[in-house]
């Protein structure tokens, strides 16, 4: 079986639903942001800023790019997606729930004892998260190992890793960057959620990353710089990145931390882990266009 089969299957499904792909992805992104706010509110802790900044990227990946489907989680020919910035997992759980990898309501049990939706993704709790992350840098290397292993087995699927910008300060990221280019892993795609803010302050204050695109180019990667909230641009660039030959690709996605929630946008204070009050959660959900009835449903425990 090749990766062509699931693409066809997805296309048929989209046509059958009668919904335009971009509209569906926008809906998934909206759901992801609302669900993220609700689960972090219910948990009493979590990292909203970096989850909201990557919601559009996740919606594009799960909605159109990744050849994965909930009914066949063990398919060895599936694409592999690794959330290397594991702290953004409320958004991963939400987008996974939207696409049927887990139950929407259960995924609201974030960070609770006995819940598989831990504060950082764990593959033994949720196989579809592909590996356990939460220590920056490692998920990228794991995705590299997956890409390498699939090449060795002549599996034509791709491996994707979503990294935070602060994560790029980990030396391991550059070990992996060098290694992927050396081994010509054109089936590996890194996406940087470049929201310019890390835990304490802007990257520029903590540890400068620029010139970032030049760094990746110098390491032998094909670099794309995009607006990480522009759905058509994300989709078309992911498609383009899949056509690189003998070179890994990286999408430097310029994003806004806390995107969609005005009082969080552009503020490192909402990196987390933070506790949201009921009022803050309601304000955030209202800003995300949620109806009062749905707000009640999402927040009432």
């Amino acid at each position: 079986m090749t990766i062509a089969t699931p693409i066809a299957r997805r296309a048929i499904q989209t046509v059958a639903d009668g919904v335009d792909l971009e509209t569906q992805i926008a809906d998934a992104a909206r759901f992801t942001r609302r669900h993220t706010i609700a689960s972090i509110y219910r948990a009493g802790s979590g990292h909203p800023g970096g989850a909201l900044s990557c919601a559009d990227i996740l919606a594009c990946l799960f909605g159109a790019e990744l050849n994965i489907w909930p009914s066949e989680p063990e398919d060895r020919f599936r694409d592999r997606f690794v959330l290397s910035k594991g702290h953004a997992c409320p958004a991963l759980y939400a987008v996974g729930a939207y696409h049927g990898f887990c139950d929407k309501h259960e995924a609201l049990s974030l960070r609770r004892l006995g819940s598989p939706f831990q504060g950082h993704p764990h593959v033994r709790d949720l196989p579809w998260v592909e590996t356990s992350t939460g220590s920056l840098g490692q998920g990228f290397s794991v995705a590299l190992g997956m890409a390498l292993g699939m090449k060795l087995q002549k599996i034509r699927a791709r491996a994707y890793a979503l990294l935070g910008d602060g994560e790029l300060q980990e030396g391991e990221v550059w070990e992996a960057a060098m290694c992927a280019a050396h081994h010509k892993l054109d089936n590996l795609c890194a996406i940087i959620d470049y929201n310019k803010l890390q835990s304490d302050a802007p990257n520029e204050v903590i540890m400068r990353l620029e010139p970032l695109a030049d760094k990746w180019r110098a390491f032998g990667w094909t670099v794309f710089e995009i607006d990480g909230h522009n759905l058509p641009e994300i989709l078309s660039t992911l498609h383009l990145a899949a056509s690189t030959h003998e070179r890994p690709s990286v999408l430097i996605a310029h994003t806004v931390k806390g995107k969609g929630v005005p009082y969080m946008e552009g503020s490192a204070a909402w990196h987390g882990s933070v506790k949201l009050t009921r009022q803050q959660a309601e304000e955030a959900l209202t800003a995300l266009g949620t109806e009062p009835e749905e707000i009640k449903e999402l927040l009432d425990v």
Partner: protein
Amino acid sequence: MSDNNAPGLIGSSGDSLREAFGKALTGLAPEFPKLVVLDADIAGGTGVHHFRKAYPERLIQFGIAEQNMMAAAGGLAAVGMLPVVTGFACFLERAYEQARLSIGYARRNAKIVASHPGLDVGPDGGSAQALEDIAAFRAIPGMTVISPADPIETALATRAILEFDGPVYMRTGRSAATRLFGDDHVFEIGKGQIIRHGHDVTLVACGVEVARALEAAEILESVEIDARVVNMPTIKPIDTELLKRCARETGAIVTAEDHNIYGGLGSAVAEAVTKTHPCPIEFVGVIDSFGTSGEPDELANHFEISAPFIAEAAKRAVARKRGLQ
């Protein structure tokens, strides 16, 4: 229980454990089509140069970058490969957190094989002598920890870890090793073996200390202490049943390891027996210190882990036991 695995070949020199590992791995490659070996530009030192020569396409070069190599092993295992991470013990410790998260926590079927453990490294000195690796890797939940004693056992253990489904940390060794076992030797993960019978005290050892424990037993014979010697190649999960039996039958234990006395074999043995079969235990190992340059045997004397020191510890354990009686 294999009681009669009598060492017939004491003193004869054999391959170093790293060479034995590299050769065994090469021989086993056809049986394990998913096997790949991960190297950080040190194949000549870890023994896997044999593998590289025979199967160059299955030796994955990571350059001098252990963290990426260790986590990538988790990814390789995730897609169905059988990765064996190789390197010097001290440098693999650099990737400890990757072993913890991407292999241990994710419970990947990946093997970590470390050459150059302990004082056995010799002249390279303290920076290169990993004396804390067993303690560190033993503390990762689900991680099996193995330290074979001679080239024969190393070859058997190499097969065993490839057949075993789960994460494993295995020590080999740099220096020429004493051959202890015959070709009929048996290795089973989680099982120790009585390799010398005795009733007064049990000497439990792993790695290079097994040969020294046997030597110590000879020394003890001259002072009429009848020492039992147990080869304990699996430190985790440790053979609790065998240790309880030895505690019951000999009433005193000495542990011997080329490792810090904190957290290694000695600790594992004490944890296993103290709850139900408490008895005097003496710990031979490096006493919370880093190593230094010197030949392995010189270092063993300097850091008091050579046979005479094991024998002295045994005398103390026996005296304590008699004080209790």
